């Protein structure tokens, strides 16, 4: 009975303590559903809507170019292509739920492309873009290759209007249609039942909205931003030998603005930037009340800024910078590496989100 008494004593003393504390400080409430609703309604769905709009402008530009293949129309097409590709950067880290089901990232942004596969698809004129074998021949990177055979507009126009012109234009049309279908499916899933279940799934277990958001950020940042955009072209996998041709948008040389857009987009996403502004940063501040030094949300925001600063130093594009100013790209890579530790270790731990894509028991 002694232990029962101890338990009784402790529960009483702890409840006394708790009453006392309640009076002293009113803990600020954090409404997780409000945060998720902000992500769902004000950030994710609008981001895909903007992408949908950009794609539909791209689609119009393609059809105008196909009917009148002049340099003015090619220029419009290139502009619309870049606008859409930039908007994609704001969606890349949202790859869960509908976009994951439709493998939107694979459809939109698998690079480097296999140029001989694209050329053989074009010359044969028979292909299934959705097939697994064609993942390196589709999306923005394939458009990048086809719309920028040369940096000079007139030379590019000549190339496009050259051999296999009809097939080439058909291929460009099909690429845009494939992206459009993926984006539309994703968006209509979100507008359907997914949005309300996303906004209300406020646990932290596997499949909860928070876990989806955080895991998608981590996966995208590690594999696609650090490795894909910077690390691999820099040569971290190839003994320091730069691999410029593996850079994102290698042909149009837009790699640096795409990279900056992706970092800015993720920063806004982390901060839940919108009309209501409730994001992961606020949730971290709410959870992290016993901070000894700087708040984690501040560290992460500072790191975003540092990454952007290191990117500012570079001269456009990354595919050239990896050979001409390797040290600067390396410095950028090092900051990305530090960010992964903040996101994957500190943030995930603070949010108590399991960083694993595998179902298993723990103890």
């Amino acid at each position, binding site marked *: 009975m002694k232990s029962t008494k101890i338990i009784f004593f402790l529960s009483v003393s702890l409840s006394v303590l*708790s009453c006392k504390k309640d009076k002293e400080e009113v803990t600020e409430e954090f409404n997780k559903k409000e945060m998720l609703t902000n992500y769902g309604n004000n950030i994710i769905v609008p981001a895909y809507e903007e992408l949908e709009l950009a794609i539909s402008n791209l689609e119009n530009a393609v059809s105008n170019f196909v009917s009148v293949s002049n340099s003015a129309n090619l220029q419009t097409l290139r502009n619309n292509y870049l606008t859409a590709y930039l908007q994609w950067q704001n969606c890349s880290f949202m790859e869960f739920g509908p976009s994951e089901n439709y493998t939107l990232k694979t459809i939109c942004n698998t690079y480097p492309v296999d140029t001989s596969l694209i050329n053989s698809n074009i010359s044969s004129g028979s292909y299934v873009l959705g097939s697994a074998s064609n993942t390196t021949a589709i999306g923005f990177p394939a458009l990048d290759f086809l719309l920028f055979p040369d940096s000079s507009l007139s030379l590019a126009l000549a190339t496009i209007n050259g051999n296999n012109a009809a097939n080439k234009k058909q291929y460009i049309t099909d690429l845009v249609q494939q992206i459009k279908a993926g984006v539309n499916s994703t968006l209509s899933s979100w507008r359907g039942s997914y949005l309300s279940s996303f906004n209300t799934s406020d646990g932290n277990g596997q499949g909860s909205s928070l876990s989806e958001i955080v895991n998608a950020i981590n996966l995208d940042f590690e*594999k696609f931003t650090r490795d894909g955009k910077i690390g691999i072209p820099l040569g971290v996998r190839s003994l320091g030998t730069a691999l410029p041709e593996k850079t994102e948008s290698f042909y149009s040389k837009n790699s640096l603005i795409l990279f900056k857009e992706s970092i800015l987009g993720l920063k806004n996403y982390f901060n839940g930037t919108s009309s209501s502004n409730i994001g992961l940063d606020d949730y971290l501040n709410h959870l992290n009340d016993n901070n000894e030094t700087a708040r984690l949300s501040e560290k992460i925001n500072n790191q975003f800024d540092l990454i952007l600063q290191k990117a500012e130093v570079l001269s456009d594009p990354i595919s050239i910078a990896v050979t001409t100013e390797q040290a600067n790209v390396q410095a950028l890579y090092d900051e990305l*590496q530090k960010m*992964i*530790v903040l996101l994957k270790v500190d943030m995930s731990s603070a949010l108590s989100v399991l960083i694993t894509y*595998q*179902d298993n028991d723990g103890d």
Partner: protein
Amino acid sequence: MKSIADILFSQKKYYTLVFFRVIFGIVTLVSSVRFLMKGWVNELYIQPSFHFKYYGFDWIHAVDSYEMYALFGLMIASSVFILLGLFYRFAIVLFFLLFTYFELIDLTNYLNHYYFVSLMTFVLIFLPANCNFSLDAKFHFVKRRQLVPAWTIGIIVFQLSIVYFYAGLAKLNYDWLIEANPLKIWLAPHTNLPLIGRFMDEPITAYLFSWGGAIFDLSVPFLLLFKKTRLLGYALVVLFHSVTSMLFPIGVFPFVMMACTLVFFSQNFHKKILNYFSNTSNFIYSDDPSKRVKSKSITLVFLTLFVVFQLLFPLRYLLYTNNDLFYTEQGYRFSWRVMLMEKAGYASFNIHPFGDERSIAISNSDYLTPQQEKMMSTQPDFILQYAHYLGNIFRKEYGDKVEVKADVFVAINGKPSQRYVKKGVDLMRIKNDLNPIDWLEK
């Protein structure tokens, strides 16, 4: 003088022991079938191209997929035989070997509760749990007995008590009691729970759970042991495990413990439950206690060894001086440290094929499953094994100059992340042994 030996060898009715065999058979059957249904045989044993080894068990290997499924099926079948008490000794030995084999395949899958099941099946090998209420007894494969020596029940009770008590001892540390971590971190996200949700991110809740958990673990064996407090003890067991089951992804284990602790109840209780299935008073007994007396001293020696091992082995971390247990984790496993800390990490590896500056960055997902990568990122012995595995792959191509370096960062119990493995250390030069680790940042 009534010695301990006299108490251990005093005769008890068979009900409790047999009840435990049935309960344990059900528990192992249900959890192995669940394991299979979840696809984990494939995911944890067959899919990974590399398995982390237990120290001293490098020789345990996964077999190919058909054999793996066959062995797993055999294990499930043997749990049915345990439950029925048919060919019991054979079945329990088989189950012990197979279960332990599966656990030893990959260190990634280590769970204290799997260790508990392995130990419990090992103990059950030596107990006459099929002496009654079993098909063995019905078919006269064994003599039906009414009495069993008290130690056969005592050892089960002891093993369960050790699990709780040592889990409680492990909680008596600064982070747990004073900082209420990791529970502060783990409870806060659960504000979505009905009724209690709004209290979950209050620090006081974390303190209540931390202290409550520690007191529960330390006291529950005693509460269960004495008749007066037994019901209270069991009610706490149910409460404790229900709450942990609700809050944490810990699968079947809360139910395993709720089922196993029923063994603390009186033999009359166990008799009633057994009678529910088959009227035990119809059994005819042929007890022959004299025959068993001969093995008393051997039994005593083995019992003592087992008990001493159970008491001391979880304390082996004390052999390491200046050992920050949560940091190095030397002596952390096999010590009933259950849900004790929040440790997150990130590890990236660079291969230096020529032993100079030039390097190749490794993408861990090319070599490890997500679960393996997660476990590897925070535990030194995993980091070392993985580094050696990578190094040996690259040595085939580049020769003996290959060096493996790692940038590892960990955060423990919500403190800011810090560098873990010393910068620039060539992990190929570090031996994977039980010596104190000197290649981590201090």
